[in-house]
């Protein structure tokens, strides 16, 4: 895929398919360690030990529409290509955690890309899922900058009558994330 944010959109679809009610996404850009880490934690239905062992294999899927599952193998390939790796842990009925690493400056690393579009798409894809998105930048001077967006906070203000998918709300979210990310200088 052309952007890591597209991989993120895709992998969180797995969490949505696993009926997660909360997905915690953390992106950390560490310029001291030259490391980009994408961490996705969900509270969905999880995978059994046996399934988990095979999940990086494209021929493993719970899909019925085709015989290969591509999301996880594609992310794994993207990591490996950039001196990184993908770790997956999971427990049935508890949830799943994916941790993807990349060498930040690696020449083959595709850009993080448009996280705003990814978050808006995710909200449109599943309004019953809550998302906690944290983005950290650790600068060469060892300063940490942090941005955080939590749909639960937004829902608290909006109450039960107004969905996150209301156009005006989505617009606000779009601006909020755009501004927050540009404040910390994240997303390259």
């Amino acid at each position, binding site marked *: *895929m052309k952007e890591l944010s*597209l991989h993120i*959109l*895709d992998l969180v*679809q797995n969490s949505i*398919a696993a009926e997660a009610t909360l997905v915690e996404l953390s992106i950390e850009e560490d310029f001291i360690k030259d490391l980009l880490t994408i961490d996705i934690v969900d509270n969905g239905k999880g995978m059994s030990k046996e399934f988990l062992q095979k999940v990086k294999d494209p021929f493993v899927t719970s*899909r019925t*529409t*085709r015989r290969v*599952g*591509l*999301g996880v193998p*594609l992310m794994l390939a993207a990591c490996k290509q950039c001196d990184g790796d993908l770790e997956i842990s999971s427990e049935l009925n508890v949830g799943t955690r994916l941790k993807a690493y990349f060498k930040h400056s690696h020449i083959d690393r595709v850009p993080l890309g448009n996280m705003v*579009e*990814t978050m*808006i*798409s995710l909200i*449109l*894809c*599943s309004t019953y899922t809550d998302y906690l998105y944290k983005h950290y930048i650790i600068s060469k001077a060892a300063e940490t900058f942090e941005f955080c967006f939590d749909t639960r*906070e*937004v829902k608290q*203000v*909006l*109450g039960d*009558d*107004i969905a996150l*998918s*209301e*156009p*005006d*709300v*989505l617009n*606000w979210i779009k*601006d*909020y994330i755009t*501004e*927050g990310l540009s404040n910390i200088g994240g997303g390259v």
Partner: protein
Amino acid sequence: MKSIKELEEIRKKTLDTINIRRDRTGTRIVVGMATCGIAAGARPVLLTVMDEVKKNNLSDVAVAQTGCIGMCRLEPLVEVYRPGEDKVTYVKVTSAKALRIVNEHVMQGKIVDEYTIGAEDK
């Protein structure tokens, strides 16, 4: 700086208008968002559809997503369900095609034949 305060105002404003549009006629636009769809460009298509629905105040139209429909080489796929009519499946959709689908099919009821799955198979 965007503030939660603005969100309060949006809430009040939206609550005022929400009752007026309970008359949902129930048109649904569904975008395929599995890996095959996302890799082929479903994200901008989904956002274009949403923006166009918003721009035209189509408050009776719902935008949703679906997983893989099993036609990966034809992604991005968009399905339009208009009440009382057969489902129409559009294939290899781009943002430009999505604009026409919303403007012509969803708003005026005219199916954009050349983008449908039937046209692709010919």
